[in-house]
């Protein structure tokens, strides 16, 4: 979808056009859900974050400036801040992942089990990173944001983002692959 088209959908959404807004929801809700889920390690909190992100878009769409950022960056910024709020409300991280299931079409049960265990290890390792290192890795590795977009979401320079990424990946490498 071209940025112009998306900007038009946002503008129509700001005027109460539900059909236009639904197109935006259907395009962005899964990537945002994945981000919130990996950030929070909790499916219910992640769903709350996604819902609230779109409520904010609905009520504040008129504030979106397409010249300043892509819509996905703007939405990630909102979702990121909501995740941080959610962290602050929780006394400690929950590492439970009881609804985890992995789509491995055609894979054997054993392979699925192995992937699930590996996913659980990664989830725990990510959860143990400093929050800003985790955010940087999620935005660049999983969400496909460019370095400038990720830096914008985190409100840091690209140099600072690279420092967060390098430290985060070093820690993950040590924990997951057993080397520095």
């Amino acid at each position, binding site marked *: 979808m071209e940025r112009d088209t998306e900007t038009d959908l946002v503008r129509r959404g700001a005027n*109460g056009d*539900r059909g236009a*807004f*639904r197109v935006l*929801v*259907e395009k962005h*809700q*899964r990537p945002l*859900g*994945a981000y919130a*889920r*990996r950030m929070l390690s909790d*499916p219910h909190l992640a*769903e*709350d974050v*996604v*819902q*609230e992100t*779109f*409520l*904010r878009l*609905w*009520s*504040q769409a008129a504030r979106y400036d397409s010249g300043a950022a892509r819509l996905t960056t703007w939405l990630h910024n909102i979702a990121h801040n909501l995740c941080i709020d959610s962290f602050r409300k929780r006394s400690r991280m929950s590492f439970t*992942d009881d*609804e*985890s*299931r*992995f*789509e491995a079409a055609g894979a054997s049960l054993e392979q699925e089990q192995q*992937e699930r265990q*590996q*996913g659980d*290890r*990664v*989830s725990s390792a*990510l959860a143990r990173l400093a929050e800003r290192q985790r955010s940087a*890795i999620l935005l*660049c*590795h*999983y969400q*496909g944001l*460019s*370095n400038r977009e990720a830096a914008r979401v985190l409100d840091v320079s690209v140099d600072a983002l*690279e420092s967060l*990424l*390098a430290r985060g*990946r*070093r820690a*993950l*490498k040590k924990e*997951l*692959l057993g080397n520095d």
Partner: protein
Amino acid sequence: MIDENRYREVLDCYGGDPARWPADVRAELLEFEARNQSVEALRREAQALDSMLDAYRPPVFDQSEAIMAALPSSLGERQLDWFVPASPVSLWRPLAAGAVPLLLGLAVGLSSSTEIVASGEAGVWEAQERVLLAPLGPASEGAWYD
């Protein structure tokens, strides 16, 4: 200019997939790599971590219907959302919304009473009160308040 240090830095930050490398240096990095076969091992190492990370694919469910159903429909609700953002896990929003008319009423009431006193209309109210309470007897006998 890309040298081995910068190449290592990029792998350390963005991993071994060129699609994730900064777009403005991607072509130069690939050229550097083609000229320096010795850096292949570094790339493979970065890719090993990428593969581990890619194994973490938590399920994400379609929330479209729930999101659309939760959208406020009226202009008033949208304006309320602006001032009092909705939160699915708290009760304070409906309480805050309910308090808005109360606060408006208090504000109007306070400003009206101030206007009456300020404009010297207190005497008019007092006279009306005397007329209404006259059947109960004169105020000096204290009958009004027994």
